[in-house]
């Protein structure tokens, strides 16, 4: 390094290293900016709808009419005039189910009946806390570790231990160690996960990683496979692995056959996958979400618009039978991926909610929705819907002091 390079580096660090941010204030300001952005988009959408008149809206309504939906707010992507809270039937007295919440440095199960949180044991105390991901049959917890031996986290770093928590279990069990960021993917079979590792901590993540199918108890179930370079693990689909291209836009995924070491298909804008299905969109203006069954090789179009997959929130149940999706109107809907029938969940389209998370629990037998203000006063709402229900059940909950965040599996 030359003299000027050394002097510049020293000058920058000397002058800047003591500067600190105010994270809580920053979070509030970012979310305020986000709400303004959404409000601006809504305004633009209304103007655009007025400008282009009715043909597009008619086409959209026609598409949904086949699924029992009449003209409504669907085409106008605005939240103006909508309620600020979820509405539905009150949760039946004594109705008890438990949801995973983060608590301090660990996790626990929050009971809707007792409003108490039962702690989960088996997660060692770590400074950064844990992050949770939904896998087939339960949850995977991994310590949050921001340190990396390479700048901007471009290299693998030391392996981290993953833990499995089955639905409702009070004990987390170690699965094994893997790469901290994309180091675990759901297996196609319940009770299995793919663990990803790199040869060295300093290996760039674009280099080939190793993946191995293991049981959630950590027992190897197959050989270690070397993934193609430039691809990151997403999860198991059928006998294949769904991989994300490590590129700037991150919209391209590949279905890779580990035994034959070849890519068998490419998918753009994947929004979800299950043991057999991949939900994706070509991303064009008039495109709709499509479902590809990797076992049969068939692809069908859904009635759900797929023109802006980036802003489309969607999550599949563990078995892939049900796809919960937030439509452009803000309303939640559930698509039966077998019959392609779409059930709209009335009362879920909110006027600029501070947050609205949703995800499948209990395997796919219960859709959980969590909504509330990010900043300022206001109670949170916990709601659920189960297949066959005609109504949504909603409860206002106080946020226990030890509950940091409710996990829905879709974040």
């Amino acid at each position, binding site marked *: 390094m*030359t003299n*000027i*390079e050394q*002097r*510049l*580096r*020293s*000058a*920058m*660090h*000397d*002058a*800047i*290293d003591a*500067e*600190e*941010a105010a*994270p*809580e204030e*920053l*979070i509030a*300001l*970012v*979310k305020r*900016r*986000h709400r303004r*952005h959404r409000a601006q988009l809504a305004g633009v959408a209304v103007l655009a709808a007025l400008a282009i008149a009715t043909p597009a809206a008619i086409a959209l309504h026609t598409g949904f009419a086949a699924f029992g939906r009449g003209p409504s707010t669907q085409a106008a992507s605005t939240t103006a005039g909508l309620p600020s809270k979820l509405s539905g039937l009150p949760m039946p007295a004594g109705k008890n189910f438990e949801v995973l919440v983060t608590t301090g440095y660990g996790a626990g199960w929050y009971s809707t009946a007792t409003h108490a949180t039962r702690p989960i044991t088996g997660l060692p105390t770590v400074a*950064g*806390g844990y*992050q949770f991901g939904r896998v087939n049959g339960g949850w995977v917890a991994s310590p*949050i570790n*921001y340190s990396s031996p390479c*700048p*901007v*986290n*471009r290299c693998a770093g030391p392996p981290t231990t993953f833990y499995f928590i089955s639905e409702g279990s009070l004990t987390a069990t170690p699965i094994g160690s893997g790469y901290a*960021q*994309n180091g675990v993917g759901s297996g196609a079979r319940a009770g299995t996960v793919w663990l990803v590792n790199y040869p060295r901590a300093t290996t760039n993540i674009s280099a080939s990683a190793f993946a191995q199918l293991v049981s959630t108890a950590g027992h190897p179930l197959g050989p270690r496979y070397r993934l193609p370079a430039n691809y*990151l693990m*997403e999860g198991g689909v059928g006998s294949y692995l769904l991989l*994300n291209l490590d590129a*700037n836009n*991150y919209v391209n995924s590949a279905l890779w056959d580990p035994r034959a070491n070849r890519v068998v298909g490419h998918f753009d804008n994947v929004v979800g996958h299950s043991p057999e299905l991949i939900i994706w969109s070509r991303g064009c203006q008039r495109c709709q979400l499509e479902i590809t069954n990797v076992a049969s090789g068939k692809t069908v179009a859904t009635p759900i618009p797929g023109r802006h997959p*980036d*802003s489309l*929130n969607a999550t599949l149940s563990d078995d892939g039978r049900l796809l919960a999706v937030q439509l452009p109107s803000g309303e939640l809907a559930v698509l039966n991926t077998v019959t392609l029938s779409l059930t709209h969940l009335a009362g879920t389209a909110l006027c600029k909610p501070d947050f609205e998370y949703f995800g499948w629990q209990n395997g796919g037998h219960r859709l959980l929705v969590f909504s509330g203000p990010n900043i300022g006063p206001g109670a949170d709402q916990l709601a659920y819907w189960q297949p066959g229900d005609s109504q949504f059940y909603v409860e206002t909950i106080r946020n226990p002091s030890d509950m940091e*965040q409710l996990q829905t599996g*879709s*974040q």
Partner: protein
Amino acid sequence: MAFEEFVRARSGSLLRTALLLVGQNRAEAEDLLQVALEHAYRHWPKVIRSEEPERYVRRILANASADRWRRIVRRAEHAMPAACPEAVAPDRTAEIAERDYLLRALAALPPGQRAVLVLRYFDDLTEGQTAQMLGCSVGTVKSQTARALDRLRAAVDAPANDRRAGLPAAGIEPRYASEVGVDD
């Protein structure tokens, strides 16, 4: 990982990069960081699923700083500070004075060159990583780095009297809207 957890853990480091990218103006740096974080927040499920959020935010910071600077200059909403806006305080040590002068010289560079130097020498990225971050070729990173270092070298080697007089040093130009050097 929740968005809030990420901000709590990494906002300090990101703010420091933003400060250097905008020439140590704290208000502008905070605004730039908010822009980048809001973008990440908007796409958080996808960001967290497929990419390290820090890399994502840093890439937006680096590119938005250049884009932002173009827009600011075009609108002429902010008065542009001169390359050397004020004399160095006489009671400071020579070392600190040189550091300040070097940072002012850095701030006076075209935004593309400044971003390259910040990513290379503050964030410690390689040339390839910097190119990927800025969406340009490695060759562009190399040439921009060389030009920028030449300018800094010329600036710090300028006679001390020129610095105290607050005159632009040799090789340091005002920030021009047209001089970016980094593809968006």
